[in-house]
Each structure stands twice: as structure tokens, then as C-alpha cells.
């Protein structure tokens, strides 16, 4: 059994220690916002935060979460500046990759409040989108940075 915190709540995973967190979150907790795309850390659609750091849930065993803090897309609350920017610019097409994109962008903006194009390129290159929303993701990250800056000054 693995004990951890998921989106602020204490959780016990009653699954094999080597099961990837992705399946524990989706199939045991029903947190289906985190997606499956490749299973080998190539696409980023399964991205969650482990103690605030973006990690790929498809290759992170449940055991690694013992005593840790997990945040999934459901834990962002819906009104996070990154989500607001994504909505304002109509970023999603099919939307399947967007949970991972958003979790990556949230982590980037925590680290770099006003990222340059180069910062964004570096942070986002591991997150695939087959619908081709990359140009809007770039714009939305910049807009989210503005929204966050506004929040700070208010």
C-alpha cells in the first residue's frame, strides 16, 4: 500500500508498487484528466506534478509517490491563470494532450514567470500535440504569464 496526497487529499493506493501512477490515478481514483499516449515517456499527455515538479505518470511507479504530494489537472481548480489563458485563446482542438500541456506550462511559469520564446521551446518540446495546437500554446503561455503578473500586482 502506498500513502500520498493527491490534489490535497490523503490517498491510499491499494495496487502493486510497480504499477505506474497513471493507471492508479485513472483506474483506482477515477481521475481521468491525466491521459495515456505512449507509455514510454515520449509524449507528455500523462504529466502530473510530484511535489510541484512535472513528471510522467506513465513511467512513475506508484511506490515513488509514497509520502509525496501529487497534483493532477483536476487539482488546478479550473480558474488557474494557465487554464484561463487556454480558454481565452481557444487552445484545444481535440483536447486530448491539453492536460499534459497545461501541467507543463504551469510548472514552467512557476520557474520562469516571464518566459522567452527560447524558454518556452525548451520547456514544451517534450509535449506532443497531433492536432497542431503548438502556436496557440505558445501564445497562451505568454498570455498566462501576463495574467499571473496582473494577479501578483493586484
Amino acid at each position, binding site marked *: 500500500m502506498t500513502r500520498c496526497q493527491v490534489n490535497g487529499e490523503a490517498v491510499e493506493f491499494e495496487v502493486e508498487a510497480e504499477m505506474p501512477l497513471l493507471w492508479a490515478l485513472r483506474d483506482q481514483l477515477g481521475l481521468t484528466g491525466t491521459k495515456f499516449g505512449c507509455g514510454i515517456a515520449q509524449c507528455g499527455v500523462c504529466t502530473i506534478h510530484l511535489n510541484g515538479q512535472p513528471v510522467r505518470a506513465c513511467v512513475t511507479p506508484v511506490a515513488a509517490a509514497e509520502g509525496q504530494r501529487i497534483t493532477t489537472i483536476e487539482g488546478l481548480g479550473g480558474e488557474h491563470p494557465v487554464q484561463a489563458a487556454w480558454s481565452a485563446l481557444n487552445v484545444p482542438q481535440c483536447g486530448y494532450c491539453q492536460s499534459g500541456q497545461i501541467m507543463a506550462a504551469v510548472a514552467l511559469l512557476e520557474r520562469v514567470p516571464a518566459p522567452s520564446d527560447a524558454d518556452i521551446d525548451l520547456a514544451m518540446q517534450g509535449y506532443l500535440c*497531433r492536432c*497542431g495546437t503548438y502556436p496557440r500554446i505558445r*501564445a497562451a503561455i505568454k498570455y498566462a504569464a501576463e495574467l499571473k503578473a496582473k494577479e501578483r500586482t493586484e
Partner: protein
Amino acid sequence: MSDRRSWQHGTRRTFLKAGAAGVFMLALRAEGGIATAYAGAESDRTDSSDAAGDARFSAFLEISTDGEIRITTPTSELGQGVFSNLPRILADELDADWADVVPVMPYADAAFVSPITGRHRTANSESVAIYYEQLRGIGAAAREMLVFAAATHWGVPAAECHTTNSRVRHAGTGREATYASLALAAAELPVPEEPRRKRPEQFTLIGRTIERKDVAGKVTGQTVFGIDVRLPNMLFAALRMPPTAGGEISGFDAESIRNMPGVVAVTAVDGGVAVIADNFWRARRAAEALSVEFSPASASGLDSATMRESLHAALDDDAAAVPFPEIDTQNVGSPPRPLDRSEMEQAMAAARQVLTLDYEVPYLAHLTMEPMVCTAQVTDETCELWVPSQQPDRGREAAASITGLPLHAVRLNITQAGGGFGRKWEVDFLRQSVQAAAAVKGRPVQLLWTREQDVQHDFYRPAFATRTRIALSDDRIAGMHSRISGQSIWRFQAHPRLIPGMADPTSAALLIYDIYDFPNKYIDSVEIPWRIPVGLWRSVTLSQNSFFAECAIDEAAVALGRDPYALRRDMLHAHPRIRHVLETVAERAGWHAPLPPGRGRGIALSHGFGSICAQVVEVSVNEDQLAIHRITCAFDCGRKIDPDMVLAQMQGGIIYGLSAALRGEINFRNGAVIESNFHDQPVLRFHETPDIVIELIESDAPPGGAGEASVPAVAPALANAIFAASGKRIRRLPLAASGLRLAQPAREQRGERVVGARP
């Protein structure tokens, strides 16, 4: 069966039921052809699970007494925007307040069969084009019914009432009523045969960028994709599949995994074995451990290197070539191509110069971000499915035939799809999930593929080779013969419209563009009888033929000493609308502006899906380093339902096409696909994506398609740009095969390229 929408609007639905006011379910009584069309065809549903308090105007439209206007989108949301865009067409004619509209995903039903295609499907970028008039009619008819209900109630002439924001008003008496309060009475009225529709200038929702109803769910993780369906008592299935494309498993030993944790059942399905367990990870582990035997497949023995040789050798096989005489239906008025080669051959014989160009493209996988997935529940009396499918009608028929149940006992719910691109047209995974669910009757089973299975068991865009002979006179093209070799998609699908002695249009159509005015065009095709599963890949025929056709024009222009843009423009004098798109992109891209050495621009055009797309790509080539500076695109799709969504589709299509042009290829070794996941079949990544500039052309023409329209032109525009920059002709895709490597694009134009997006 489950409530028809509970799985997609769970909480809201419960609330609605609890708070429902009236207790009526009103079926529409449509009479006469027109009325039926405006109401939508009759539903073939036998279950009546509608909540109390819903006035049902048609399968497309229900208005609840608490004011929710529920509009079912007939086609499947794949990322192309129909979830918002189709309901909006109806809502505009209805004068609904957009805030009241709740789009609903469709289910397989006769009511959603398009009167134009006779099908219930999502394909061909046709959703808006084929449902536009029908949805307008339904909205307009319902609006008149609501007006009539109000006018009758108030005792005033209907003609004196008007509607806005989900309300009917009568100016003379100052009375006003909400649609919610009128809906139950209105839905009982006869459907008007010829409701008055708006003039385009009266549209309030069509043609604007308004709130998209799917975005909130997609940025919060709440959207229910196929993989996210969760039902009580649900089990999960993983597959064991053979190594060979299109292969089968001949035997397996269920006992070998019977004791693995969570395993519930093991059963044979089409093309594999399904292992059913209490979660997907356990199912997958057990499937991988299962001991199986494979039977030899028809693709066994096929290797990519020898397949390429065969494709090229087939181009010499005159006796096997069948002509493609069909008139291009998208360009009415263009002359039919001849069945007879003689005039073309005379033009070749008389030519000052004949160019002979050999080109080729590889097999391509779709790589939807969401792997194949379907959830099914089978009982002795019913079968219900939840599936991201592009073919609800055929999927439902397949489920009926597998279970032996009558069609009306099969309920097929369409979920949001994590991409489609033509892959979810196929019903292979849907069949497998019904077969798996039948092994554990009563319990829902979600069957999910791995990415490796998705890459290795796709229905690929076929590889093709072409030979194009171009007869040149002093200053123009005097004739063109283009021959294509490859597998026939229609043959693989056993398509009823495949005619012996005539080339499969999915191979041969538009191999030479009809729109260009030059004489003596002749297309033929040599079919290769391999049995590798092939299918529809975003933009289908044009995905390869735009590359072949537009590179050929470029090579002809160079041989003639003409500017490739000017030559095209001159050959488009009979098509001013198309020519305008070409002129627009040239202007926007600064076609004539001088460039430093090593830098070049390429241009290409494609017309399909009722739309016209032209692109200019600007690149630098430095030895083996390719830098793409900018892609400029001009697009005319007629009337746009939402310009912002059209922009999104243009960006997405260009990126999809560019990804394939650069690195898309599926290779075979002894009939098995070599590639397996994104590490060895890479797709375009964020940092590699160049700046994309899009110009949308204003038009009142009937709405055309946007979902596929920008895919085809990017590969030829890129190849032509590389030639302009370096003198190196790219005659084979992907570019990776030519040894060119993508350098990180220099971001010259800072900032957002999304014209028209909010804020």
C-alpha cells in the same frame, strides 16, 4: 440501457431530473418530406429515456422547461469543432441565446443520417457542408413553432411577434415569453413546411468567433474521451496482437495467465486475443505474458526495400496500367480526361522537351493522440457502446452482427475523440471490444490499445510511386501523363464503387489538377496487390497527389524558365476564385521580395473538400541543415461558421502535413511494422514548429471543409522551397530520407500568429 447522456453530463443531468417540472416526452409528428427533413428524419430509437420536462422537437433539438436548449451535433467531435459549430447553425436560426445552448454528442441513429450522403459518418471534412441547410431548417421550423405557440396563447398574429435570445416578444402588447415556457406547447404543433430562414446578414452566431462549448472541459480534464468512460462494474481489456500487419493469432493458452492478478477472462477477438482484468495495467501485463501462436499473414515476407523497388518497377508495366477518366466532381465544368492515350502521346512526340520525373511517398500512420479505445456492454437483449468513432452507422451494424441482436437493440454513443484523422473511421477496435464484452456478459469492458499496437496495426496511407512525363512547348505545358503505383484503398475496403478497368480515385484523382489550363492530361494507375491494411488518412488522395502534382508543375516551370507562381496563375484564368487564393498567398508571403543566397520560397495549391488552400514556405538550406522560416497560407472555404476555428484547423493541418513530410514513414520487415512508438516514428514537436501566417478570405460561397484542407499543400510547397533555396530536388518523402535535418527555426516574427483569436 443507460440514460442517454448521463455519461457525458452526469451531474447536470441528475439535477435536471430532480428539478423537472412537466412530465412529457413529446415526439415530433412530422408529415411530408420537407417537414421531415426540417425535423430530422425519424429516429429509430426504441428506448425512451428522455428526462421529464424535455420538449423534443426532433432528434437534434430538445428544450427543457428550465431553459436548457440541447442540440445534438450529428457528427463526431475529433478536434475539428463540430461540437460547437453544428449546434450553432441550428441555434442561430432558432434565435437561441448561446448561453442556453448545451451541445450533446450524437448516438448512432437513423435520425442523423445525412440526407445528402445517406450516411451517418464523420469524414471528408463535410460536416458543415452536408448538415448546414438541414440544421438551419430545423432551427427555423422550431422558431416558428415557438412563435406560433406564443401568438396563440396571447391571441395576437404570429406575424407581429419576433424572437431574440431564447424569447418571443410581441411589441404591440409588450408581452414576452421564454422558449422554456413555450417549449412543451410548441413541440406539439405541426412542423412548418417552409419556415422562413434568415438572410446571411441576419446571422448572429454564424460567422463569428463565440464561446466554444468544448473548451472548458478540455482545460480542466473533465471532457469524457473514449478512454475516460467510467461505468459501474467496468472491466478493462488489453490486447495481444500478432507481429505482422493484418495477421492473426491461431492459438493461445489462457491457462498461462489465469492466475495473474486481476485477470477475469481471456478471449479471442478479431486479429488478436483480449485479456480482461480489473484495471488496464494488469490486463496489459497479462496480455504480454500470454503464450500465443501466430498464423502466417498475407503481408509476411514484405520488406520495405523490395517494396519500394516493386513500386518503381510497376511504373514500367504499361499493360497493367488502368486509366483514371473520371471528371473531378469538385470542379464542375472541367473537361473529362480522355480514356485514350493517343492525343497525349502525340503531344509527347511533338514536344520540344519531355521531362520524366519519378517521385515516391511512404506508408503513413495516423497517430491520433488517443489510442484506439472502445467500451462495450453486452447482455442477452442489448448491446451498448461508448466509442470515439467516425462511423456510427457501420459501427452499430457491426455490433449488431457480432451479437446477433437486432439493430434497434444496439445503442452506440459517440464520445469525444482524442483525434481521428481517418483512423477512427475503421471499426476494428469497436468490433474487438464487442467481442471482448460478449465474453463477460453484463459487465462493461473498456478495450484499449497500446501505442505500439496503434503504430503497428494501423490502416496506413499507402506508399506510392509516380512517374510524370511532361511535354513542354516553347513557353507552356503541352501535355502531361502521370502514372501512379501502389495499393488501392478501395480494393482493401472492397468498396462497391471500384470499377474494373478504372483506377481507384483514392490513388489517382487529382494526380494532375483539372483546374490548370493545359491540354492533353492523362492519368493512369498500376495497382499493387499487397494486403497491408490501408485506409483513409487526413486529406486522403490529396495527401499524396498534391505533392506529386504540385512538384511536377514546379519542375515544369523551372524547365520553361517561368516563375512557378506566375505559371500557375496564368493557368488559372478560368478559375478566378482559386486564382485569387493563389494571388493572396503570394502577396502575403512577399513572393517577389529578393532573398539572400541559400534561402528560397516554394508555392503550392490544393483544392478539395469545397475549399481552396495555397501555401508558401520559406526556407534556408545550408548543406544538410534545413531551416523553415515561415509558412504562409491563404484559405477560402466559403462561408465560415467560426473564423477562429478555421484558423485553428489551418494551423493544425499544416503542422500535421509538415510532420509527415519531414519524418512520417512506416517501414516493414517480413510483413511487420518496424516502427513502434513516438521515439522511432517521431512527429513534429513544439520547438520545431515554424511560424505560420494565415490569411482567411472573405466569401459568401456555400461553406466548404476546413479539417483536411491545409494538409496537402505543405509538402509540395516545402519541397519546392528547398529547390529554390538549394537547387536540390526532393522527389521522395519523408525529407529525412534525403538526409536533410531540421534546424531549429529562427523565430523572426515574434508574438502571436493567431489572427482573430480572443482577446
